[in-house]
């Protein structure tokens, strides 16, 4: 019997193949990196190269969910749009019903819940999307969540989704602590420091010509979702490339010696 046709049927060894195929769709997606510090969360993503005659502005990798939360994804673009809409609706209905902004975890849980729903009944197909939900809780704490097509969600300090995410996570595991220990006072400097780490991690996955960074932090008690300017990103990319070249040079020198 083919265990990969009907969604709701388990294979004898306990797998739901359709869900695993959805996870494969994510693995083939463009990598996205999320990093959290004490003051902010930041997400770096690579943009696809667009055909020459296409308007690149119509391609969105990140969606704003509320004033204090945004979502980045890897996987099927169209599925992500449906999920982001679901999350936006939940955010506003939370505000309407409870007169309070939702926490990032509430939104992550809702997105994961929606993804899970699509794995358990007939006539549906799972979302081919993993999301990173980044934001500032109403009390000012930065949070970073990851959701999967199966409906699993976890909180992270730094993680990656999409292609080569294992390699990227390995780099983050090796370098995060050192960067986090030297977190500067100012938001501007923190943004640059963690932006550099995120770009370096992203570069480990795939070389991207066009990188976007979004950061969320609290300013005067109010959440700010900032699309980091191209100038700052270009400067950071230059630093990362410079350091990479230096390291390669050092490696070559030691080889000669």
């Amino acid at each position, binding site marked *: 019997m083919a265990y990969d046709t009907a969604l709701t049927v388990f294979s004898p060894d306990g797998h739901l193949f359709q869900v695993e195929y959805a996870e494969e769709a994510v693995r083939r997606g463009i990598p996205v990196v999320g990093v959290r510090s004490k003051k902010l969360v930041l997400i770096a993503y690579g943009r696809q190269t667009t055909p020459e005659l296409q308007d690149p502005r119509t391609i969105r990798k990140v969606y*704003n*969910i*509320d004033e204090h939360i945004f979502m980045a994804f890897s996987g099927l673009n169209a599925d992500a749009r449906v999920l982001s*809409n679901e999350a*936006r*609706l939940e*955010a*506003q*209905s939370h*505000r*309407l019903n409870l*007169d309070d902004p939702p926490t990032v975890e509430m939104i992550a849980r809702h997105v994961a819940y929606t993804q899970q729903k699509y794995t358990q009944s007939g006539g549906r197909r799972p979302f081919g999307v993993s999301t990173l939900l980044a934001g500032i809780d109403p009390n000012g704490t930065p949070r970073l969540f990851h959701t999967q097509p199966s409906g699993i969600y976890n909180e992270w300090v730094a993680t990656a989704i999409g292609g080569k995410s294992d390699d990227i996570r390995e780099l983050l595991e090796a370098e995060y602590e050192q960067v986090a220990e030297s977190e500067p006072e100012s938001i501007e400097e923190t943004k640059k420091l963690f932006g550099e780490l995120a770009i370096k991690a992203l570069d480990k996955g795939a070389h991207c010509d066009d990188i976007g960074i979004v950061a969320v932090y609290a300013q005067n008690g109010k959440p700010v979702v900032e699309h980091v300017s191209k100038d700052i990103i270009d400067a950071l990319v230059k630093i990362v490339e410079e350091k990479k070249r230096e390291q390669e040079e050092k490696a070559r020198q030691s080889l000669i010696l």
Partner: protein
Amino acid sequence: METQIGIRGDNFVVLLSDKIVAQSIVKMKHNQDKMKQLNKNNVMSVTGEAGDVDSFSEYIEANIKLFGLRQNRPLTTSECAYWTRGTLAEALRSRSPYNVNLLIGGFNPNTKKSSLYRIDYLSSICEVPFAAHGYTSYFAYSLMDKEYRKDLTKEEAIKLAIRCVKQLDHRFLVGQPGFILRVIDEEGIHTYDSQPILENGQRSFNFVNVANNVVVSEA
């Protein structure tokens, strides 16, 4: 008995409302802000049945925010006004209509023009240069008819609103002790609070900008 006034200039709108929440003949609260900031350049002021005012305006506020998020741009004043009217009209013909009167004013950063919409509880809508609701309108309209000009400046419009309030205090049986005034222009939304003063034995009001304490008076 509630006061609600709106005056539109070329590139700004002035909205004014009282701060009283009343239950029968008793004042329950003296400092209620009856306006909702729908987004960074649109404000809605609401009066009517107390419960309806809260649930309706919160519903509108949440939906307009949601549309803004979905479209990745803030809604314009006319979009806010027409969606609100549609929702009110639908409710009117259901078993649970809302008894609310609204003024929606805002500034459009693309066209650099402002607009003011008057919507009543029967969900009629019109775009007008100046507007008022309720008993207040009998006093305010006569003054605004006389004094309104197309080329009114921001300061003149605020002063006109102050004159309306002064006239109310002078003639209207149910005087009100305080008001909130908002100016919506290119820079965003400016909030003013009223400050009663005595002028030759007659009460009048100054308005103080909440952000920088600048005082605007009638004179």
